[in-house]
């Protein structure tokens, strides 16, 4: 079973990202579960959201304490929270930042596993004119993990957003995902 943790701030779309990833994995034929961790919800407060993906039915209903994959949607949380807590040695960390992976590694003193960085905020501002980094982050997560496929991810995003934001809005999201997928760096 794969367990993924999204760390962001309220309003950045971490909860939606976790749900979209689960939805895409279900579309692919896997079993899934996704849930946010609710505390005091308010814009800007740290928020966790989780996804489980497995080949067999997922029955467990407890929280995730050892995520193999962690996606950080806001780089200011890197030092504010223990983002790599509970990660295994071969864990994958994906961070929304303009820094390169080596800088992130030294800043949080994380020298195992794999680290990826992408400027999802920059991509988001280019695409939407504001910082909603969740969809580009999904592109980066997919490139780093291969959990679903880019096509399935794009299809799910289209399905989810078409009624709300129309084709133009969907296209902006799809371009943002593609850009993040292409631009994410490992190191």
């Amino acid at each position, binding site marked *: 079973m794969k367990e993924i943790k999204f760390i962001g701030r309220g309003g950045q779309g971490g909860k939606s990202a*976790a*749900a979209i990833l*689960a*939805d895409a994995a*279900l579309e692919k034929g896997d*079993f*899934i*579960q*996704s*849930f*946010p961790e*609710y505390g005091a919800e308010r814009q800007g407060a740290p928020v966790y959201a989780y996804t489980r993906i497995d080949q067999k039915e*997922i*029955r*467990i*209903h*407890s*929280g995730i*304490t050892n995520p193999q994959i962690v996606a950080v949607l806001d780089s200011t949380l890197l030092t504010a929270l223990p983002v790599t807590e509970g990660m295994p040695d071969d864990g994958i960390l994906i961070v929304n930042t303009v820094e390169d992976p080596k800088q992130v590694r030294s800043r949080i003193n994380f020298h195992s596993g794999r680290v990826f960085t992408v400027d999802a905020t920059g991509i988001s501002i280019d695409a939407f004119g504001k910082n909603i980094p969740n969809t580009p982050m999904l592109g980066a997560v997919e490139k780093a993990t291969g959990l679903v496929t880019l096509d399935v991810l794009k299809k799910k995003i289209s399905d989810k957003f078409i009624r709300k934001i129309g084709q133009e809005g969907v296209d902006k999201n799809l371009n943002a995902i593609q850009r993040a997928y292409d631009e994410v760096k490992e190191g």
Partner: protein
Amino acid sequence: MKKTAMTGTEAVANAMRQIDPDVVPAYPITPQTEIMHGYAKFLSDGKVTGELIRVESEHSAMSASVGASCAGARVMTATAANGLALMWEIVYIAASMRLPIVMSVVNRALSGPINIHCDHSDSMGCRDSGWIQMYAENNQEAYENAILGMRLAEKARLPVMSCLDGFITSHAVEPVTLFEDQSVKDFIGEHIPDHPLLDTDNPTTHGPLDLFDYYFEHKRKQSQGMFDAKSLFKEVAAEYNQRFGRDIKELEEYSMDDAETVIVALSSTCGTAKVVVDSLREQGKKVGLLKLRLFRPFPMNEIKEALKSRKVIAVLDRVESFGAFGGPLFSEIRSALYESGSPKIVNYIYGLGGREIDTKMIERVYEEIESYKNKEIEEYIKYLGVRE
């Protein structure tokens, strides 16, 4: 059939869409509110035809449910925690008037202190109110219990609480298989109300004063209605299982064939316990899980049969019964097994206010009860996962 990713609240809203009740009085409360968001969306999209009454409190939500149900409408509502507590007076009245209202209860801790997360103090507080109660392990069951519950309510002429765990399942996305709309409608059938107020050719009085002359007889009949609901559950489940290809019973016995140590629990914790049972079974341990899907009416004979020959039983209660000898599930199960004599039974109070219950904690319970095979239980009421 196709699986769709949806939250527990969306799953329940979909059951409401397919049942399409005539009247839905509702008042928001976390974590229930999203059920009504979902239903209201179906309503404004023209997918359902019912009337959503936005009332000013839960007391009014249940009052409007009673009124609409007396009038002859098929009625559904939903609530949680303090909302259910505020309904209290009318919850009893709905049951005593034998009104087949189906209410989803998204289990949440009662205040105080104020807390929005899961435990069963809300619905367990209503366990003697005369409502049938079903508890869902996951989103699929939350969806299906609402459908089965609707049919059972109308057959037993009793209200049904269909409970799911706040946030743990209500706000978790899981794969859910929805039945065909028509198939659900066929199963539910047409609502034929008993002595509806709107049948003006045959006027009837509802809710009159009833003093020492007949009150007791009416309560006795209400009680009989609840006893009869035991066999009606079997009938409805049989129809349901045949139509939808399920095997729903009052209880789910998981890995119970030769189990010597058994955990008994409700709702989402059962899913986590199944993971533990599988892993302990791989190590050759004779462990099992008994899940109650139906809590009211209490399936005493079935429980007795399932548990009588076991060695040690741990009953997990996600609620505290202050001053009682253990939680409600514990005391009733212990009472059910009194004559069978053999199993030792111990109670664990856990998960209050959403406190985590994980596989390690459940493993520890199995380890502990294994040790009671050869020694006396020193303490019958234990607290799991609390700082002391």
